């Protein structure tokens, strides 16, 4: 099997497990909707305020729902003692990382698309005119978050309080993603789109490239005992 097939196999395995249980996706979704509800009570925003705080809140929801999902990325493997098997399989460990990362990406994107829909619905957002940009930004932002999140999930998997330690490690490292994603989302809400849009999208691309390459190099060390 070449590298891409290995990545695909691991991705497929994770999607299949998730399809059978639907644990991660449901919890991410419910959590996301709850955050939206909280937002309504905490700020009681009118439409102008919703536009101002919307991008930030949307990404906060994505990030926290994402952390929920990341925590499960390796926890399942650990509980079933299947990580050893995965490591012994004749696959490049980089493929394990990429497969896991893509699986996280897929789950997050699925949850995000529904959260985004509800968000737009509840707060009367008109994302439709620029849905193409919104898709691109969500994809890039989530990719960056998933790439850092997956390796740090693997790091925190080996600790005593993995679900507590993950946000502590992940949030500061993922901060540039949040900045870039929020800024570019805010830019597409105005008409015409803010000039900073292309700049922040490019920033997200650079971040993604760096933080996919680096974990690929480092992931072997995380798995080694």
């Amino acid at each position: 099997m070449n590298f891409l097939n290995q990545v695909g196999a691991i991705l497929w395995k994770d999607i299949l497990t998730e399809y059978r249980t639907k644990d991660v996706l449901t919890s991410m979704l419910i959590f996301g909707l709850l955050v939206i509800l909280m937002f309504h009570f905490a700020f009681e925003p009118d439409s102008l305020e919703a536009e101002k705080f919307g991008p930030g809140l949307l990404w906060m929801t994505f990030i926290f729902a994402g952390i929920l999902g990341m925590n499960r990325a390796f926890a399942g493997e650990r509980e079933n003692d299947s990580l050893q098997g995965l490591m012994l399989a004749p696959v490049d460990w980089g493929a394990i990382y990429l497969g896991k990362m893509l699986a996280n990406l897929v789950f997050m994107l699925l949850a995000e698309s529904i959260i985004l829909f509800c968000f737009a619905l509840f707060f009367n957002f008109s994302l439709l005119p620029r849905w193409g940009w919104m898709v691109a930004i969500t994809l890039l932002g989530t990719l960056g978050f998933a790439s850092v999140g997956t390796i740090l999930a693997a790091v925190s998997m080996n600790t005593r309080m993995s679900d507590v330690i993950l946000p502590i490690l992940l949030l500061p490292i993922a901060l540039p993603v949040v900045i870039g994603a929020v800024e570019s989302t805010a830019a597409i809400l105005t008409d015409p789109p803010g000039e900073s849009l292309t700049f922040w999208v490019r920033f997200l691309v650079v971040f993604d490239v760096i933080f996919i390459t680096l974990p690929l190099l480092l992931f072997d060390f995380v798995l080694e005992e």
Partner: protein
Amino acid sequence: MKLIRVHALSTFIAMLIALYAIFIFAPTERTMGFIGEVQRIFYFHVSSNWTTFLATFFVFLCSILFLLKERREWDIRAATAAELGALFGTIGLITGILWAKPVWGIWWTWEARLTSFFLLWLILLGYQMLRRVVDSPAQRAKLSAVFGILAAVDTPIVYMANRWWRTQHPAPVIAGGAGSGLDARMALTLCITLAAFTLLYFYLWRMRCELERAGDVIETLQRQLQTQGMEVR
């Protein structure tokens, strides 16, 4: 004289010279039009921030070296550098806050440098946290090295992101940043203080590494005695 003594003595003397330079040699700030004497916080503030960045750089370097060589020594160096980074970061934050109040009239502002420095400090604390919750020493070393590298690469990105973030908004100008028409005597004072802090950093780093090694030796001794059938604990 042993090298460590020379180091200790030179740190001590450099610190004294720095204090003399800061409080007596350097002129009182007048050009900025604010309460002059307070400007003297600046020297220690800049120096401790510089030391924090230096420490972070060493965390990065030693983490890479550890992953390449897998020698405990590099793990010790990375871990102690991170601890010192957090220490000097704390000093930098406190002095920064006490400097911002009289100069800008506010304790804190979400300006690029402040924000990213605060984040770096949090990352360094997170690093300490990570080391505490991993039980196996071999794994602790590897995981923290991986995190150390990610964190160190992230730091400049965070800084740039913060700088570009809302650049159109008026931000308070950092008065007296290095090179902004600093008086020659002030510049010299800053250089001396920077040198003194760098010396202090390396001195503390050495001592802290030594302590860690001593801890290792004690642990091996305990284990050896245990294998000889002695009740150690």
